[in-house]
């Protein structure tokens, strides 16, 4: 079985976590297991330490991002939000996604317009993200947590496309 990221980084298994503690625990574990410290050891131990380092990095990156953390928590509750069979998303939400994608397409060369769009989207994303803590309050009703996390996946995707377009311009 794979190790639980929360346990690994000595944090309670909740959506709201202490980010300072996350950083502190991550750094102290990294120091302890850093492969350089094992230079004089046998190969097996070196490999074990490299593996552990990768695992801790993975855990840290996952828990640091609110969206990845939400996905991971749902995964721990046996909910795979990437289930491919799920295609029905609230219509008005999708309409907004479509409009943003159209706007991106129309202004692909226009740095100012793209930055404005990115700004609007970020505002919307932060608003949606601010709902997450409440969504995870009640473990027996994760309906909203699933909905919000899925929506954030669409928003991350368009953000990524806008970034790609901005890089092209520069």
């Amino acid at each position, binding site marked *: 079985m794979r190790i639980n990221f929360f346990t690994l980084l000595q944090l309670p298994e909740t959506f709201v976590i202490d980010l300072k503690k996350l950083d502190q625990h991550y750094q102290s574990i990294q120091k302890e297991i850093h492969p350089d410290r094992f230079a004089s050891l046998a190969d097996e131990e070196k490999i074990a330490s490299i593996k552990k380092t990768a695992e801790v990095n993975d855990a840290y990156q996952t828990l640091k991002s609110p969206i990845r953390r939400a996905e991971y928590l749902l995964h721990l509750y046996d909910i795979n939000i*990437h289930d*491919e*069979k*799920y*295609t029905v998303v609230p219509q008005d939400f999708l*309409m907004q996604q479509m409009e943003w994608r159209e706007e991106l397409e129309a202004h692909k060369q226009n740095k100012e317009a793209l930055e404005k769009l990115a700004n609007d989207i970020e505002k919307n994303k932060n608003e949606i993200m601010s709902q997450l803590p409440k969504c995870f309050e009640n473990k027996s009703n994760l309906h909203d947590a699933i909905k919000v996390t899925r929506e954030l*996946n*669409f928003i991350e*995707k368009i953000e990524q496309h806008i970034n790609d377009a901005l890089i092209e311009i520069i």
Partner: protein
Amino acid sequence: MAYSDKVLDHYENPRNVGSLDKNDPHVGTGMVGAPACGDVMKLQIRVSDDGVIEDAKFKTYGCGSAIASSSLVTEWLKGKTLDQAYEIKNSAIAEELALPPVKIHCSVLAEDAIKSAIADLKSKQGK
């Protein structure tokens, strides 16, 4: 990953890209999305009074397979009755386009877009 020739053909020359008037009582609009990859698909059909699909348009923001799946179904939809359209299965789309297993969800998206467009039309017409 390599795309099949049919996917490439639809991707490079997509059929029936565009929009129909979503306020037209004869037009059904289906909107679906795949949270797994952030793809968004809009499919619209215009249906005659005797229930035959006269026109179909799509707009998809997604990977080549998603675009090809929606492009293909717009071709298939024209001339079909709503009942026939409802019978279009994602497996047929995947087979026609030779989609690899990791891209099957694109065909699922297209099938669900058809169902969503039909549902929209029916609710509009009060059936």
